[in-house]
């Protein structure tokens, strides 16, 4: 057995057993053909792509599964939700702090790099509406810049807080994980509806204002207010999920659950991170319901062997 053949066969371990049995030999043959014809570097990239696709099949992240379809639906609305969250943080996080310098010149300064992150996300949304097929790259750029920027900002004790950034970054994950599809839909209207709903909900839960002063800003108590009001939002989100699921709009239900993830998780994780805050029982119940819903989607998306398809002869393919 050649080294190349052995390596190709090892790559099949990334795939679930059923897939391996169905397609394994075929993939190895293609890899070997490619390795013979291509330069070593190209052959390595073939192997990496086969391994990555194996991980996708194993996790149910392909375009045929419910998880994959839900991620596809959630991808661009997730980025838009991030941009609207950014706009909200500009208004309720940054403006009060800027205003405080006018009213209380001796108080502060509260240095921040937040506007730079939010601008990246807003620009990201403009670009993704124009070129939706590049949503994965756009999300990758937004997420990387935000994470690296936040790490650098924290070294110099600058705003924003890690919680806001964690929510923002997680909203790019659906775009990063969503499978490739024939046509990447822009989903402008649903995305804007999701963004506006997020914006309105944040106003509702965090009692935002543009009153001057750091203690009026979202950076001071916004995440706490999100966690405190989260049960109302959770009830709505889970009821929406259940309604969509029952009415058989299951991919949209899955997308709803995916987009709800950071908010539901923060509702529990934020109070848990602080000794003086108690975790709301309703938030814990919502988290359990969310986990059950996600488990349902992931389980439904597991790879299952397909029955052999009957080949209908196409008029174009009569001569091979």
């Amino acid at each position, binding site marked *: 057995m050649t080294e190349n053949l052995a390596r190709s066969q090892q790559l099949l371990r990334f795939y679930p057993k059923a897939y391996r049995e169905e397609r394994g030999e075929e993939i190895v*043959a*293609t890899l070997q*053909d*490619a390795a013979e014809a291509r330069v070593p570097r190209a052959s390595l990239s073939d192997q990496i*792509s086969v391994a990555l696709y194996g991980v996708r099949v194993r996790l149910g992240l392909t*375009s045929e599964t419910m998880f994959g379809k839900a991620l596809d639906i959630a991808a661009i609305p997730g980025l838009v939700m991030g941009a609207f969250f950014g706009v909200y943080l500009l208004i309720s996080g940054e403006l009060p702090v800027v205003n405080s310098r006018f009213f209380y010149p001796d108080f502060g300064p509260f240095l921040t790099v937040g506007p730079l992150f939010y601008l990246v996300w807003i620009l990201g949304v403009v670009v993704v509406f124009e070129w939706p097929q590049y949503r994965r790259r756009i999300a990758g750029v937004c997420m990387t810049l935000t994470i690296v920027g936040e790490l650098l900002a924290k070294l110099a004790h600058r705003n924003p807080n890690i919680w806001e950034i964690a929510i923002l970054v997680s909203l790019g994950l659906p775009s990063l994980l969503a499978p490739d599809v024939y046509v990447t839909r822009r989903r402008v209207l649903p995305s804007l509806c999701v963004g506006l709903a997020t914006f309105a909900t944040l106003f509702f839960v965090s009692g935002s204002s543009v009153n001057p002063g750091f203690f009026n800003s979202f950076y001071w108590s916004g995440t706490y207010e999100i966690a405190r009001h989260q049960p109302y939002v959770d009830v709505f989100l889970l009821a929406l999920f259940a309604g969509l699921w029952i009415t058989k709009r299951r991919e949209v239900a899955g997308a709803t659950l995916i987009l709800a993830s950071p908010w539901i998780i923060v509702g529990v994780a934020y109070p848990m991170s602080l000794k003086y805050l108690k975790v709301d029982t309703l938030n814990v119940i919502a988290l359990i319901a969310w986990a059950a819903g996600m488990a349902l989607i992931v389980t439904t998306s597991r790879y299952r062997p397909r029955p052999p398809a009957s080949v209908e002869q196409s008029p174009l393919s009569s001569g091979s």
Partner: protein
Amino acid sequence: MIKEMREPTFLVLATLAEGKRHGYAIIQGVASLSEGEIEIKAGTLYAMLDRLTFDGVIASAGEEVVDGRLRRYYELTSDGTTLLGEESKRRVKVSNIALRRLRFVGGFA
């Protein structure tokens, strides 16, 4: 809103329009049609084949063992043929409009 088929998918279907092909032959066909511009990786190819098979655009068309390697062949289904035909017509139509406009402004012979 424009709904266009992405280029690699179009090229895979165009390769299969010539007849049934196995995995690596499809990769070669795409490279040839795109004059080397698009090189599909093996993992990407199987993601596309799975998706197109699931959607009933292509189907498995038999297999054989050549030099100890299993070759599974794929071909267009009737739906796939229709889809490719429609997409090709759309592309020709857009290209013709573009060429007519370029000629009108004297930018293209």
